[in-house]
């Protein structure tokens, strides 16, 4: 047993770090680290730059243009990118529909879509949830009826993250209304510019536009845009959510946020003493830091088990539960850190080009909105209650 990275692994991390420092635009880095809004173009530009370097698909096999890295390399890559303030990769293409297409897509779909994901020619979004189907995803009601060479879609999706930017959506629809709940569901790929698709913004508690409702009114999608066979959508979705869950812990990002918290707590003063040196707050930081250390090691243990040939089991649900709780604690402590300056609402300060006078310390503006925003992380991707149900059943046999 050896908890240290090998020299090769350290050299790899260092290579990534040097490259990111040389290639990540400083304005982008600054915006990421200070939680300002990122433009669509700058996200695309960053993905393309990574792709040019050959790192566009860190978790993808080489045959599809990926890096072919092992899981430790992937972990280090995520970690360095988070640490250096790189934009988070867009999960919908790279981590969701990409792997699904590799596993279940037709040759044509692979040939066409996978390179476009790496180059981010397509901006994907996800059409799973519906207003009536939250945790109970299988109760979805969206219909897809085959008429000649097209599926005709009718229904509504919701919580569609970044749907306003997307030109493509992968979605679940009921293609066989007679079949039982999980059966009769298929996964389809649709162009967002097809007539009949309407996107309506949902504004969240932090005042931001991140998620959307997407309405489908007789939307005609080419017949070949189904993934795999009709009725296999539920299988594909479970495969996809399994992939999502490992990334959802966002340990690298939380480590970067912990640093940010410590910086803020050093700037803030209580009767002249840095907040980071007052007993109560110091120990709150310590507590979340220890939780995060433990989670990182747990994650590394799982990565090691995976490399040793053990398939990632439902234990990954644990990463989601703990990872999301830690993310929430961090946003909460940052809000706490600024005291009364947690109150002012100044969304302009998050604009890329804003040059106004901040209200209170410059770092304060995003903190309370982030706290509000991060309530979602224990809800989305399968709420933490659902994760516990899964663990109880799959791991504990209850």
């Amino acid at each position, binding site marked *: 047993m050896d908890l240290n990275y090998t020299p090769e692994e350290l050299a790899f991390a260092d290579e990534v770090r040097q490259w990111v420092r040389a290639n990540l635009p400083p304005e982008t880095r600054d915006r990421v680290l200070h939680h300002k809004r990122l433009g669509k173009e700058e996200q695309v530009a960053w993905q393309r730059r990574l792709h040019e370097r050959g790192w566009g698909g860190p978790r993808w096999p080489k045959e599809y243009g990926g890096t072919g890295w092992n899981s430790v390399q992937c972990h280090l890559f995520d970690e360095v990118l988070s640490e250096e303030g790189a934009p988070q990769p867009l999960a919908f293409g790279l981590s969701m529909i990409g792997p699904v297409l590799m596993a279940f897509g037709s040759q044509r779909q692979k040939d066409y879509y996978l390179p476009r994901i790496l180059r981010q020619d397509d901006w994907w979004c996800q059409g799973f*949830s519906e207003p*009536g*189907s*939250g*945790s*109970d995803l299988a*109760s979805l009601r969206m219909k897809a009826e085959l008429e000649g060479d097209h599926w005709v879609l009718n229904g509504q999706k*919701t*919580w569609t993250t970044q749907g306003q930017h997307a030109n493509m959506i992968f979605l679940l629809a009921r293609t066989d209304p007679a079949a039982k709940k999980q059966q009769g569901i298929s996964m389809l790929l649709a162009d967002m510019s097809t007539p009949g698709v309407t996107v309506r913004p*949902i*504004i*969240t*508690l932090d*005042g931001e536009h991140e998620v959307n409702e997407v309405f489908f009114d007789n939307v005609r999608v080419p017949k070949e845009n189904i993934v795999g066979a009709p009725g296999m959508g539920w299988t594909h979705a479970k495969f996809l959510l399994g992939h999502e869950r490992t990334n959802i812990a966002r340990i690298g990002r939380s480590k970067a946020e912990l640093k940010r918290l410590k910086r803020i707590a050093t700037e*803030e*003063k*209580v*009767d002249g003493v840095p907040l980071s040196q007052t007993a*109560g*707050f110091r120990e709150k930081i310590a507590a979340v830091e220890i939780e995060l250390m433990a989670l990182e090691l747990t994650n590394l243990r799982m990565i090691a088990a995976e490399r040793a040939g053990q398939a990632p089991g439902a234990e990954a649900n644990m990463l989601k539960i703990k990872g999301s709780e830690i993310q929430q604690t961090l946003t909460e402590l940052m*809000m*706490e850190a600024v*005291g*009364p*300056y*947690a*109150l*002012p*609402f*100044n969304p302009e300060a998050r604009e890329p080009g804003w040059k106004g006078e901040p*209200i*209170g310390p410059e770092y304060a503006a995003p903190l*309370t*909105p982030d*706290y*509000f*925003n991060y*309530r*979602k992380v*224990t*809800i*989305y991707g399968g*709420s*933490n*209650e659902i994760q*516990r149900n899964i663990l109880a059943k799959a791991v504990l046999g209850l």
Partner: protein
Amino acid sequence: MDFSLTDTQRMLRDTAVRLIRERYGFESRAKILASAEGFSRELWATFAEMGLLGVELPEQHGGIGGTFQDLAIVLEAFGRGMVVEPFLPTVVLGAGLIRAAGSEAQKSSVLPRVAEGALFLAFAHGEPRSRYSLTHVATTARRDAEGYTLNGAKAVVLGGDCADLLLVSARTAGKADDRDGLSLFLVERGAPGLRIRGYPNVDGTRAAEVALEGVRVPHSALLGGEGGAFPFIQQAIDRGIAALCAEAVGNMQALNELTLDYLKTRIQFGVPIGSFQVLQHHMVDMFIAHEQARSMAILAADRADSADAQARTKAISAAKVQIGRSGRFIGQQAIQLHGGIGTTLEYSAGHYFKRLTTIDRTFGDADFHLTRFATVDAA
């Protein structure tokens, strides 16, 4: 010991509750929030007409001579409705301070105008570096023959953006963090050298950053004796906290009702989600958290005007801790139990949560007051 309401209190409660139900629905409130000033002068006039602004003011100054407990009843109803009008800064803090520390002339000139809704007040005390400390005042007031010159900056002044009259704390002696040497001044909006930068808070209430650059006030602007303002400041903030407690309890009750209703009507897996035992137990804990908070809000209202500063601050801090913890738990759980819909602006649960979050961060958070509670006996 008596927890029952007096007839006046019952009347006040019914009036305030009806007003909120009829005039302060979620849609109406959204319109108010979207308006230019971010609150409704029309509703303010209605509050005045109904006597809600003068509940606690003496009859000779246009009020009805009630107690803080009477005021708390109005505040609880306002909490249910998430009222954003500047009631706390004007009525609880501003008018309260003038009543406590003002001269007869000051009272006569200000209080009746507050009662009739013609005047907004704000208590400009906290500063950019003071955090939750009540004594950290770096703003100075220099006295000369004609009056005082004020210099300094005030932070997150609740209601500061619409205030006609600011009650500004400043140092006439001593150094930052001294209890002695603090004085209070009435400063009119529009005074030369006074800069007010108004903004909305995250919960829809309003505040302002206030800069004072050589602001001149006459001797008559001094509120109370020179240098002896600390006890008044402390009591004003304690009253503010007691008011927040009452408001929070109304908020929590409404949010619990909303969440319970959602549990009973939201169907997943073919059944109401309230049939899942884990969610039931979370809801039970929210119910308990609200009952515990309610008890402490009652205590805070009972003690808000007590002259025994040490016992008062201890009770008030205890209440603020309980309100902070209960509010955080109920708010976070309510969003979690609602799932996605709870995270959106178009649904009311999130607004309750935002207000509860803001209340915890106002006048000292739960941890600040836990320490104050634990150390007040030694101070």
